[in-house]
C-alpha cells in the first residue's frame, strides 16, 4: 500500500501532500519537515530509497526523485515493489507533463486541484489503479470536459476550473 505522496520544493515547502492514512494536520507538517531533512542530507548519485521506519512504522520506505526544483516522494510499505514505485513516479510526472505542457512548479501551485485529480486517477486509497500515462491523460481530459459541461448547469464557482 502506498502510504502517502508528497511533492515539495527544494526549500522544503510542500506543494502537494497526500496521506492515505489519517494523520492530523500537525503530524503531517512534522512528517513533511522530517522527510525534508532526510532528503537534504542525501547526496547526488545515490540510491533513491530511504527507510523511514522511525516516522511511519516498520517496513515503510520512501522513494524520492528530483525533477527540476521539486522533490517527488512516494511513501510505501512491503506490499509494493521498490522499482515499480520508481516507475509509477515516472508515470505521474509524465502525466503531469502531458497535461500541463512542460510542467513547472508554478503549474502545480496554481493547479493543485488538477494535480489531485491526476493523482487520484493513478492511486486510489493507497492502491495503484493505472500505470499507463496515456490512459490517465485521457481520463483527466474527460473529467475536465465533464466539468465544463456541468458548469453550464451549475453556476461556475471560480477556482474550481483549472486554468
Amino acid at each position: 500500500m502506498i502510504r502517502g505522496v508528497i511533492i515539495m520544493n527544494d526549500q522544503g515547502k510542500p506543494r502537494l501532500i497526500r496521506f492515505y492514512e489519517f494523520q492530523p494536520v500537525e503530524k503531517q507538517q512534522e512528517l513533511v519537515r522530517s522527510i525534508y531533512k532526510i532528503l537534504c542530507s542525501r547526496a547526488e548519485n545515490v540510491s533513491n530509497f530511504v527507510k523511514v521506519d522511525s516516522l511511519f512504522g516498520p517496513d515503510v520506505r520512501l522513494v524520492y526523485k528530483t525533477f527540476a526544483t521539486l522533490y517527488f516522494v512516494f511513501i510505501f510499505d512491503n506490499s509494493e515493489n521498490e522499482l515499480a514505485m520508481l516507475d509509477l513516479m515516472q508515470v505521474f510526472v509524465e502525466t503531469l507533463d502531458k497535461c500541463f505542457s512542460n510542467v513547472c512548479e508554478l503549474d502545480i501551485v496554481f493547479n493543485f486541484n488538477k494535480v489531485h485529480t491526476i493523482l487520484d486517477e493513478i492511486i486510489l486509497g493507497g492502491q495503484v489503479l493505472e500505470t499507463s500515462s496515456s490512459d490517465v491523460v485521457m481520463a483527466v481530459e474527460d473529467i475536465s470536459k465533464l466539468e465544463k459541461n456541468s458548469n453550464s448547469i451549475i453556476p461556475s464557482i471560480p477556482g474550481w476550473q483549472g486554468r
Partner: protein
Amino acid sequence: MALTCPGPPSSAWSFPPLPPTRTNASPTSPPPSPSTLPPRTSSYSSLTSCARIFPLPVFMTSGKPFVRKKAIAAILRVFEQYPDAVRVCFKRVVENLETTDVGILSAVVGLFCELAVKEPRSYLPLAPEFYKILVDCRNNWILIKVLKIFAKLAPLEPRLGKRVVEPICEHMGRTGAKSLAFECMMTIVSSMSEYESAVKLAVGKVREFLLDDDPNLKYLGLQALTMVAQKHMWAVLENKELVVKALSDVDVNIKLEALRLVMSMVSEDNVMEICRILISHAQKSDPEFCNEILGYILFTCSRNFYEVICDFDWYVAFLGEMARIPHCQKGKEIETQLIDIGMRVKDARLELVDVARSLVIDPALLGNPFVHGVLAAAAWVSGEYVALSRNPFELVEALLQPRTSLLTPSVRSVYIQSAFKALIFCIWSYGKLNGDDASDPSALTELVAKCHLEGNSETVACESLSDTEVDNANMVIAGGQMSSASSRKYHLTKESLEGLVNLVGTNLGPLAGSDEVEIQERASNVLGFIELMKPELYGHLGHTEGNGMKGKLEASEVVKLMFDVFSEELGPVSLSAQEKVPLPDGLVLKENLSDLEAICSDVKFPLSTSFSLVHSQIMEKDTASSPECKEESGPSTESTSLLAEHRKRHGLYYLPSENKGTTFNDFPPAHEPKDKTIDEAEDLAKLTEESLIIKKKQNQVKPRPVVVKLDDGEGLNVAVEKSKVKTDLISGAVREVLLGNEATTSSSRSKSSNKSSKRREVDRIPESGNDIVNTAISERSNVGSGRRKHQTHLSSGKEKEQHDHKGKQKRDSRHHKHKSRQRADGAMNIPVQSPVIPDFLL
C-alpha cells in the same frame, strides 16, 4: 470538480444516485462522476456509513471497467472499517479475478495482496486463481502483486511452493523488467529458499544487480543478499569482494547494507580479519558510519558470551584500540565489555590489565569525555587485578595524576579506589616479603634473590602470593604471553614504598576537602588508612624493632584484612542467587512492617554525638529501646558513621551480619556492573561458586580460554511478548465466505443439487459463498417470499453462466432492476434492524 470535502454522510455524496440506464452506455463514454469517489482519507468513515446506505458493491457490478476498478480499490478501506461488508461482496471481488480487463485485474490482485499480507491463510483457497494469473498474465504490475501473494502463501503450503517455483524462475529468466526480476528474486529468496536450483538462479540475478552501476540496483541487490544470507551463506561468500567494495560506496544506504552483510559473515576464523578491515574503514569514514561499524562489531563479538572470539588477548587489545578512535561514541559498551571479560575470562586478565594500564597512563585520553567510561573500566580493572600488573607504582602514579581532575566525579572515585587497592597490594606484598623473614630467613633470601633477578618475567608479588592468588600465579607463569620488551620486575623496597605512600598522601590530600561527596569520602578513606599505616610502616622497616611489635601487628593485620577484602574474586552473579540464600532461623521477614511507618514518617536523623553500631542480633519490637552499643574500632569515617546511625535507628531491619572484630563496610566499588546483589559477601560467593557452570571448548591449537557463564540465565528475563492474537475480523469473514459453514450449507446444497457435477474448484468457491449468502439471508427475519424466488433464481442462474461475462452482465443488470425496486424497502428496514446485513445482491 466532482471531488467533495469530507462532511456528514448525507452530503458526502453530491452526485446523483446511479440510475440503471447508465449502465448500458458504451465503455468509451466519460466516466460518470460517481467514479471519482471521494478518496480523501477522512471521508472513509463516511464511506463506511455510506456503504450501508449506498454500498460500493453496486459499483463493483457496474458495466464500466473503470468504475469497477475504482470500486475494488476502495473496497479495501471499507473492509477495514466494516468487516461485515466482506460477506456481502466478497464473491464479487473474487469473480473479478477472472476478468480480462487489465485494470480491474490489477486492482483485484492489489487488493488481495494487501489482504494476504495481513492474514495469508484465509486466502489459500484462492491459490489456483493466482496460479493461473501467474502463468498466463503478461502485465508486470499484476505479476509483481501475484508474486507477493505467493511469497506469503508458499510458506503455509509446501506443495504450493513446489508448483509455483518453476513459473517464477521462468519469469525471472525471461523478463527484461528489473522490477519483476527483483520481485522474483525476493520471492524465491524469502519463501522458497529450500529449492536449491531456484536459489542459485536468484543469486545469479543478485550478482547481476550488484555489478550494475545504478546505485538503486546495487542497494536492492544487497538487500536481497541479506535475505539469502540467513540460510545460504555460500551466496554471500561468493560475492564477498563486491560486498567489501560496497563498504566504501558513496551511498550511505549501500554502506549500511554492506556492513550488515559483512557482520553476518563473521565466524571464528575470520573475525580478526574482518574486524581489521572494518576498523580501517571506520577510521576513514565520517563519525556516523564509524560508530555504526563500531556498534556492529561490539554487538557481534559479544553475542552469546563472546562466542566468536577465540583469542581474547587480541580482542581486549582491540577494545582498547576502538576506544582510542577519535569519533568513538561507544564508550559505554566498551566499558561494559572490558569489565565483563575481566570477570568471566581469567586467562585474558593479564592482557586486560596491560591494555588498561596503557589507557590509564595516557594523559591525552583524560580530556576526551566520550572515553571516560572506558577509563573508569580500565581503572577498575587495574585495581581489581593489580596482582597481574607489571608495575603497581606506575599504576598508582597514573591513577592519581593531577590531570584526572578532568574526569567526572564518578570516574574519579573509581580511580581513587583503584589506587587504594594498588596501594594495599604494594604494602601487603612488602609486608609479606619482610614478614616472612622472621620465620624463615631462607625464604627471604630466596625472595630477595628473585626480586633482583634480571630478566625475570615474573612479578615479585607472585612469589609471595597467598593461596587465593596461587592459581593466578600459575596462570601467569604458564601464560607465556609476557611482553619481552619490559620486564615485570619492580623494586619493592622501603624507599619506593615510602615514596608511594607520600605520593598518595600528597595527591589525595587536597581531595579530602573536595565538593564531591564520593571523591571526598574515598580520599578520606585512603588518607585515614595511610595515617594508620605510617608509624608502623616507617618503624617497621627496621626488622629489629621489638617494642612496636603490637602496633605493628595491628597495622599489618589491618593491611591483611584489607588485602583479603580486595582479593575476594568478583564474578558474575545470577539473578536467582538471592533466592538461593537460605533464610537464617529466627528471621521473620514479613512481620513488623507496620513499624516501618513510625520510622519513615520522621525524615530527619537526630544528631548524636556518640556513634554506635548495632549488635548483631534481631531486636524486639521496641525500637525505642537503646540497642546494645559496641564501640567502633578502626577508622571512623563519615560513611560508616551515617550507616551506623541508620543501623542504630532501624536495627530491626538489618540482616544479621558476621560478628567480626572490626566492621569495615566493604562497599563495592562504584563501577560494578548493575546486576550485583551483595548482601552477605561470603554466602553469596559460596553460592555463586555452586552455580557456576564452566564451559570448555576443545579442538583449538591454543585452547580457548574459559568463559564463565551462569546456568540459570543472567540477562533480564524479558517476558516473552505474547502478541495477542487479534481476531482479524476481515479474515474471519473471508474464511467464512470462502470455505463455507458445513452445517448451514447442507440445506442449501440440496437446493442446488441439480447443478452439473463437473465443476472446477473455482466455481465451488463462489458457489459456497453464494450459499452462505443465501442461508444467511434465509435466517433473517426480513425474508419475503419475493426473496426466496430470487434465491432459487440466483442459484440456478449461477450454474448456467460459468464463464460467460456477458451473461453475467445481463444478470447484473437484471439484479440492478431488482435492487432499485428493493432498495426502497431495504432502506427503510435498515434503521429498524441494525444487526441485519442488508442483502443487496439479490
